[in-house]
């Protein structure tokens, strides 16, 4: 970052206030600074939101205290950035959410078989590790889901790697660390990498190089509950896979109802890149990999 353009009065004021103009310019993403940018708490996110949305959101501006006791808490910079990204993604990208279910009886049986070995290795072989691996394998079969659309919409970039972002719920907000090259890694390694990243995310100790660059993101609420939801695509990715809690479901086998553990899958995708039939085929393929994990090998 080179020295930003600033008039002599702005430079002098910054010096008096102890503001590093180069750092401030980088923070604001600008090459030129004015006196307005030296205010104690510049917030480009807040500033833009308040000017752009002022008309649409004026009914949100309510004095809540008149209805009962309230408490105010400033949102963190982290949360503001996330809010801005989610807002942009939801406003600018036409999204469709496709719902499906996967039979995970075989997968759960396999996991149960490996329980003793997992204990010995000190690794918890989670369902998420299988889901991430299966997603990476599915992405290799469906390259369009492993792509990004340029901001001007004119170029689709196909990625020759399969990195999966794992949405992690932390005390300071949602974080998405990324596990790299899952198609080339074994389940033990994937499980341990996910566990490591998730643990460090809780302490906010994930490096910037461990986030970003994902092919697709998985957001798994299975540990908490729910039967379906509609996640928001995390651009520049073109799809996101939401997973909720597997449920024992009566499935007709032709002669009788059988109890089968079915895993609800919710795929939100960028309809500019992916059409409905492609999404349905992708999900059938993905559900098939989960139903018979041996298929990940072939």
């Amino acid at each position, binding site marked *: 970052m080179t020295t930003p*353009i*600033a*008039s*002599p009065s702005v*430079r*002098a004021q910054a*010096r*008096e206030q*102890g503001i590093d103009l180069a750092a401030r310019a980088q923070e604001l993403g600008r090459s*030129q600074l004015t006196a307005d940018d030296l205010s104690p708490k510049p917030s480009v996110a807040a500033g833009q939101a308040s000017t752009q949305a002022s008309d649409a959101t004026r009914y949100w501006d309510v004095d809540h205290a008149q209805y009962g006791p309230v408490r105010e808490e400033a949102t963190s910079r982290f949360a503001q950035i996330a809010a801005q990204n989610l807002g942009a993604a939801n406003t600018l990208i036409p999204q469709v959410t496709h719902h499906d279910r996967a039979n995970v009886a075989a997968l759960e049986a396999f996991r149960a078989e490996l329980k003793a070995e997992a204990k010995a290795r000190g690794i918890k072989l989670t369902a998420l590790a299988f889901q991430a691996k299966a997603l990476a394998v599915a992405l290799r079969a469906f390259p369009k889901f492993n792509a990004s659309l340029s901001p001007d919409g004119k170029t689709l970039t196909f990625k020759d790697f399969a990195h999966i972002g794992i949405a992690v719920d932390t005390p300071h907000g949602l974080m998405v660390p990324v596990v790299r090259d899952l198609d080339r890694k074994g389940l033990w390694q994937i499980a341990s990498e996910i566990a490591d990243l998730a643990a460090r995310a809780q302490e906010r100790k994930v490096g910037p190089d461990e986030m970003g660059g994902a092919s697709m993101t998985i957001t798994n609420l299975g540990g908490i509950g729910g039967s379906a939801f509609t996640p928001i695509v995390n651009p520049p990715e073109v799809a996101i896979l939401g997973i909720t809690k597997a449920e024992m479901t009566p499935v007709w086998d032709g002669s009788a109802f059988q109890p089968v553990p079915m895993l609800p899958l919710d795929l939100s995708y960028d309809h500019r890149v992916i059409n409905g039939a492609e999404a349905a085929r992708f999900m059938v393929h993905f559900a098939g990999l989960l139903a018979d994990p041996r298929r990940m090998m072939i």
Partner: protein
Amino acid sequence: MADNHADFIVLGAGPGGYACAFRAADLGRKVVLVDPRATLGGVCLNEGCIPSKALLHAAQVLREARHGGDWGLNFAAPTVDLDALRAKKDGIVSQLTGGLGALSKRRKVQVVRGSARFTDAKTLEIDGKTWSFEQAVIAVGSSPIQLPGWPEDDRIWDSTAALELRFLPERLAIVGGGIIGLEMATVYAALGSQVTVIELADQIAPGADAEAAGILHAAMAQEGVTLHTSTKTARVEASKDGLTLHCEGAFAGTLEADAIIQAVGRRSNAFGVAPEAAGIAVSDRGIIEVNASCQTTVPGIFAIGDVTGNPMLAHRATHQGHVAAEVASGHAAALDTDLIPSVAYTAPELAWVGLTAEQAKAQNIAHKVTGFPWAASGRNLASGGGDGLTKLVYCPNTQRLLGATLVGTNAGELLAEATLAIEMGACLQDLALSVHAHPTLSETLAFAAERALGTLTDL
């Protein structure tokens, strides 16, 4: 125990020193200002910028009278009363130095006449008296360089002596074709001397844009000044009848002169205050090491102006003076710019600020050049101005202005717009879209910008 104590002491009352003293006083400090001269103002007011401008004004009047015939205005050949001219110049100088005296009284600045030397990092000696101090500012300026091996002769002048108008030499040689040498050439040529300038570099006004310097070169030659560039003065001999200069280089041979002005640069006076006694880092050429806040390597001691090195210019010293006073008084201040304008008050004037094309090229900075010739300026032609040029250096990507050079009448005044534009980060469009009054010379800046933008309709 010292004889005296100073809260804030400024050594040297030139444009840097008095500005520093006055600013500190305005910030509530008790200030002592030390200078060996009887009057305030230093070289600039007493024997530099101001008296030279007075003589240059007289030179301009003479030139215009001589060219009156071109306009059908015929004057008798002017006679120059050197004593009256000197008195007029001295009167202007006393008016200004007297004004400074009044300004210092109003601010209750204690002026001490004398020369100061450090005895350690907390004390000074001023003409036998010891002074302790809280904070000190070194602003003792510079002196003309005396070339070694030259004879002792009172017909060999430095710039100070040249401004005294001792007599009007029939043949005057000026060694050094920088700003000072060229201004002296302008004055003495107008007064009637046969002037020859000898410059070591391959152009006059070294450091300035070569094309612009070439325009000045041609204009001065037309006024009868002989200019030898790429020429070295190897030896000077003095005899009863005159002075002989032996030259080498592009001009090889001898020159006879009735007086010589040495104008080969200035040397810091820092050693005069014994900075080493205070432990201040100083180069072997007397340049005191300072940061952008004018702090020396010794806490509480500041240095400003010519003792801090090039460019040795009054306006830089003044700004540094304010910075030192503010920093010493607890403010965060710094001279955080490289934009120190240079002006040669020649005929025509030559002025520049920021990067020249040559510097941008040498420093490998992406740049483009645009210009506007003053031959196409209505105001210039109508005012009897000669050849002139406005030249802008700008960034090809952002079109931000990086430097400007002007040569022509009042170029020194016109330069301020370019300086402000560069400091404000202006681009060519900013210059072109700002409405300039017509007809003015300032239009040439907007025209040069328009030319680069392809919107010019005056060429």
